[in-house]
């Protein structure tokens, strides 16, 4: 746990390093594959929907499925989720309904958050998925406060927050890590080091030897894990969550991974990185790696893999066609939820807009 050496679980011969084995049943091993496949299909569809003008924007997590699913698989009822805009996979794995997620992309009446935010700004009260905002890393201190509240009430739950390598440069990262250390809150900080903050490489983000090593300065454990090894992620996040729930305090985990796609649909990564570099990482595609592992284990074959992909595509297609037919949000909803009760000035502004007088 020096924050420098990298933890891995899946060995090339199809076995699992016993020290880092999350101990999943065969059924769970396949369920993990199913979630990763669904996430990939969702991201492909998200990009396609944006390209064809059916939604305004999309942020894919392609290449980072092992982080999202490996971590999400260890979350339990009662835990709190503070992901970034790129971590729908975490929520999806925890139980964020695909239909609710897809509806958010359309921002119409089917969207539980009433079209208030751009696509990828998730929210779900049932699974404690706290509304995602755009400013980077602002959610980290929230995950400390929420965890503090749970701890105060003696609840055996944890709060997890996910963010990118760029997020570690912010003041809120420092504040959150420091507060979590001081108050020993049950918070798991999962940094998905996907090598880039838009165009800026992680080596221009910090001169530190790793991101996990930063934990030392806050007096909390820092763990570096192969973020494309879903079982390793599952293991270290599971351990950190268990530690947190049992009163052992916070952990920083750096999952080393790669953003295989663009930062968002607004981004053209060819401007700042080479095709060779992408190709190199593509060889370590977390889904392909995991599928190969399952095949060696005799749990998956080509046919079952194809079926999983087809089912994932169909599930996404269905969710999209259900959400897309919903009508736009009503204009008057513009003025709702600013306060619990609408103050007079907003009622006046609403009436002005509805009467066509501005």
């Amino acid at each position, binding site marked *: 746990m020096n924050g420098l050496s990298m933890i891995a679980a899946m060995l090339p011969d199809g076995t699992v390093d016993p020290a880092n084995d999350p101990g999943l049943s065969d059924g769970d091993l396949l369920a993990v594959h199913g979630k990763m496949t669904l996430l990939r299909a969702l991201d492909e569809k998200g990009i396609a929907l944006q390209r064809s003008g059916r939604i305004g924007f999309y942020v894919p997590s392609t290449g980072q499925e092992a982080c999202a699913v490996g971590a999400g698989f260890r979350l339990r009822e009662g835990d709190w989720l503070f992901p970034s805009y790129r971590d729908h996979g975490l929520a999806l794995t925890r139980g964020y309904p695909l239909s609710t997620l897809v509806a958010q992309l359309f921002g119409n009446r089917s969207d539980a958050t009433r079209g208030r935010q751009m696509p990828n700004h998730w929210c779900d009260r049932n699974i404690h998925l706290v509304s995602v905002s755009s400013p980077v890393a602002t959610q980290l201190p929230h995950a400390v406060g929420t965890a503090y509240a749970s701890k105060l009430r003696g609840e055996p739950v944890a709060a997890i927050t996910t963010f990118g390598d760029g997020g570690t440069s912010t003041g809120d990262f420092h504040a959150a890590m420091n507060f979590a250390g001081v108050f020993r809150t049950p918070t798991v900080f999962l940094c998905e080091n996907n090598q880039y903050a838009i165009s800026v490489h992680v080596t221009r983000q910090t001169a530190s030897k790793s991101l996990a090593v930063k934990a030392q300065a806050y007096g909390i454990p820092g763990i570096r894990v192969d973020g494309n090894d879903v079982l390793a992620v599952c293991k270290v996040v599971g351990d950190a969550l268990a530690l947190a729930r049992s009163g052992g305090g916070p952990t920083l985990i750096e999952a080393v991974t790669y953003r295989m796609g663009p930062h968002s649909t607004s981004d053209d990564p060819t401007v*700042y990185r080479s095709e060779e570099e992408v190709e190199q990482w593509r060889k370590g595609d977390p889904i392909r790696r995991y599928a190969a592992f399952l095949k060696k284990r005799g749990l998956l074959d080509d046919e079952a893999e194809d079926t999983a992909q087809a089912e994932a595509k169909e599930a996404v297609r269905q969710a999209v066609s259900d959400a897309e037919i919903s009508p736009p949000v009503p204009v008057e909803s513009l003025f709702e939820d*600013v306060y619990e009760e609408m103050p007079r000035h907003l009622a006046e502004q609403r009436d002005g807009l509805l009467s066509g007088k*501005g």
Partner: protein
Amino acid sequence: MPQATLLQAIHDTLHEEMARDPRVLVMGEDVGREGGVFRVTEGLIDRFGPDRVIDTPLNEGGIVGMAIGMALNGLRPVVEIEFADFIYPAFDQIVSELAKLRYRSAGLFTAPVVVRAPSGGGIKGGAYHSQSPEAYFIHTAGLTVAMPSTPADAKGLLASAVRGPDPVLLFEPKALYRTVKGEVPEGEHLVPFGKGRIVRPGEDLTLVAWGAMVPVASMAADLAAAEGVRIEVIDPRTLWPLDIALIEESVNRTGRAVVLHEAPRTCGFGAEVSALIQERCFLRLKAPVGRVTGYDTPFPYALEKSYLPDPEKTACAVRAAMEF
């Protein structure tokens, strides 16, 4: 004169200023190889190198704070905040430090930092890629706040900012980046701070607008013209210090005024403009000063079109003033 978009004008001016003065440098998130998320700084790194076109870590407070240090030690940093919505982590550095350094040191130290930030809506950017936060900064003594609406003004204001003695915040209406094209004077072109511009003359009502609302004001003036109302559109260009003399002279002629801005209404800069007009033109006013603004809600995603002021809403306010 050559034609350019607003975005090209800003790009070219940065290029010219960096070529003119080796102390000028550009810094911010993604401004280097990427050329900024809007491509304003595209290619500058090839010409001036990474020491003067600096990709920073992701920390706006750090960016502005470091720029203050550079500026008080002889450099001329031009900071890019990726979106104005992300300026708040730098609020402390801007409000507590940048704005007050000259005053608290009685002029012994100054930090002529230029902060550029794409602002405003119109790109379906939702709550965090659409805001117009100019009023927070106008409220802070020591800052100059400007917002161009034409390529020529963008050049002139930016060049004045880079060369001037005090910190300047330049809010760039991103909706106009590529949609507005116009002539840009070649060579040295400085637009002084505190000097507004009459966009179109008129006799019946003064419409004050800035940034992306200037084209909206012009469209509203066309609508009004069809009803026989001649509107004078004024773009202050610099919001603070404001060219109140220009507005005062105009309103004394027209007797009616409407202020148009994207930012929310309450404590928006329109409130200040309106107060100044009624203080100075009270006896000439034939109607209360009207305001057309964004609503007092967070900036919405799906309902962006309903939120933003448009020519029709502006025409309503004009009619109300005419019929008062």
